[in-house]
């Protein structure tokens, strides 16, 4: 019987249902067991052979491979929790992690949702409501009104003139690059607004649009926060996630290079204040565009991030354990003065995909070699003989390094990527290896468009 090291006198739970799959399911399982909590893993038929199936205390298949009938089947997940006696549900990232109705249903069923309240998820999921909340808390936002655009095209043009071109029109319910359109010329405003509104109506069931300044060469910088239910909150440093292809992050690093604490410190504190104002609990990430020394709030992710390990490496804080402790009702064990971010960390997402066409690569992993050395961490769920499924995201591992300086971290990642071998499937390893030799990337402070531009000229040696 495993010893528990959490306060049993606090209101809580002793069994967590992990409502996710892949590397994050394995990551959450480890965190729970380190806290002395029992775990229930769930899977679809396609994941019955998952490596974490043996590590969890109970492993239950809840449906067929189609995610809508398994990982997204809210009723099946709640019934699985009931069947197994789970007292809490950890949603991980993706799937139902930012679904306010699921969070509400979990709590209505008498279980603990390991994440923020349904109200917080709902507020931050609505871009206009989120922006209003951020402005109220003093978080810097992209220039533009915090209200939905009027229907009248002349009025929209007047607002665009006020902001200054180029501007971007976004669907209030959109995200991930969908439901948005950049306008460079005032003559295009009428048509662009009409098209985006119709797309928003059809794709998101919400025709509300908003407009803001379009930044030409921004970086993607984000701030990790952690809040308890006793009114305390801290920020755990910052990350740069500018290496993106089609809005999908490929490499992340912490801290964001070239941004001094004098510049980002007030923004971090504003994020903490915003969380306190909206009564936020658990972990969350404020995403910003950063250009010419200014931060512009994009959105808040009300969940654990894929890239949370780089913050764990620099801050020394186990973010997954921390969010579970918060869900158990515990107070934060640290205050802001005790948060010391040291060194530099990179994370490379290893995807099962063709490095040139980016088409997913399904198949059996025949041979695996991971790097083993100090300051190198690999988060993965795959093993030799693992069958990469065509049904889900292509992320199969994350290689993370930590070193005293950015230059040393780059050197360490080069070696780690060189040592990594995955046979039997195609992966993006060749791309990652090449990227870490690219002079502009090595120099740092590249913008969110860099990777797509670089890929146009990149070819495997």
């Amino acid at each position, binding site marked *: 019987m495993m010893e528990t090291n959490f306060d049993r006198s606090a209101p809580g739970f002793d069994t967590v249902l992990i409502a996710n799959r892949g590397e994050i399911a394995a990551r959450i399982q480890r965190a729970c067991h380190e806290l002395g909590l029992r775990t229930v893993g769930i899977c679809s038929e396609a994941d019955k052979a998952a490596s974490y199936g043996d590590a969890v205390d109970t*492993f239950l298949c809840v449906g067929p491979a189609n995610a809508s*009938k398994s990982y997204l089947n809210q009723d099946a997940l709640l019934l699985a929790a009931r*069947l197994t006696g789970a007292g809490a549900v950890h949603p991980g990232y993706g799937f139902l992690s930012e679904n306010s109705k699921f969070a509400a249903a979990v709590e209505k069923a008498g279980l603990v949702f390991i994440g923020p309240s349904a109200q917080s998820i709902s507020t931050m999921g609505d871009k206009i409501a989120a922006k209003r909340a951020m402005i109220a808390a003093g978080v810097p936002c992209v220039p533009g009104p915090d209200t939905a655009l009027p229907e009248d095209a002349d009025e929209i043009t007047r607002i665009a003139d006020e902001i200054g071109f180029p501007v971007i029109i976004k669907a209030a319910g959109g995200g991930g690059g969908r439901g948005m359109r950049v306008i460079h010329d005032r003559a295009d405003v009428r048509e662009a607004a009409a098209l985006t509104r119709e797309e928003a109506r059809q794709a998101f069931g919400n025709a509300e649009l908003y407009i803001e300044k379009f930044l030409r060469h921004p970086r993607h910088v984000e701030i990790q926060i952690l809040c308890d239910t006793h009114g305390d909150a801290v920020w755990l440093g910052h990350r740069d996630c500018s290496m993106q292809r089609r809005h999908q992050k490929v490499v992340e690093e912490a801290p964001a290079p070239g941004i001094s604490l004098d510049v980002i410190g007030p923004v971090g504190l504003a994020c903490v204040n915003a969380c306190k104002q909206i009564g936020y609990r658990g972990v969350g990430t404020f995403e910003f565009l950063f250009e010419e020394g200014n931060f512009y709030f994009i959105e808040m992710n009300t969940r654990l991030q894929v890239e949370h390990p780089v913050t764990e490496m620099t801050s020394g804080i186990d973010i997954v354990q921390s969010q579970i402790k918060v869900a158990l009702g515990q107070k934060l064990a640290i205050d802001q003065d005790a948060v010391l971010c040291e060194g530099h960390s990179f994370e490379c997402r290893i995807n099962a995909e063709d490095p040139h066409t980016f088409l997913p690569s399904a198949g059996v992993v025949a041979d695996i070699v991971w790097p083993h050395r100090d300051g190198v961490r690999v988060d993965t769920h795959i093993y030799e003989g693992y069958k990469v499924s065509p049904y889900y995201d292509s992320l199969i591992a994350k290689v993370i390094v930590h070193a005293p300086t950015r230059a040393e971290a780059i050197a360490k990642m080069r070696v780690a990527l060189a040592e990594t071998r995955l046979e039997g499937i195609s992966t993006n390893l060749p791309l990652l290896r090449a990227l870490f030799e690219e002079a502009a990337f090595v120099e740092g402070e590249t913008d969110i468009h860099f990777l797509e531009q670089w890929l146009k000229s990149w070819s495997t040696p």
Partner: protein
Amino acid sequence: MSKLDLTDTATLAVLTDMLTAAGVEGLEIKTADKQLRLVIPTSGKTGASSAVDAKVGTGSARKAMVKAPTAGQFQTLNTIDGKPFPRQVASNDVVGSVRIGLVLVPVIAKCAGLLLNPLVKQDDLVSYGDPLFEIELQ
């Protein structure tokens, strides 16, 4: 066990959720003075009842597998009628059930034959698609 209030909307909502999750298309309850029929849209989100029975082997050894239609606690047939295994079954016979709370989802044989001993024990927690029985085909 407390009496089910068939006029309580919260009770109906819970029943609907359970049936939806279990992949059950409908439910009819008749009492002396009331009748309730719940019909769940089949174009919905669950496919729990879609676990396919697999046929394996050749000739006299051909067998079909009966799989769990949903996750839940397995209930063997002989707890219902007391008859021993092996036993003859016809196609579409109910050969057991999977319990999820108050709902019993029937386990149905997709083909006729000799139903062999259950592969899991009474009240065992089973996953969607877990093999529950073998049927020797005739």
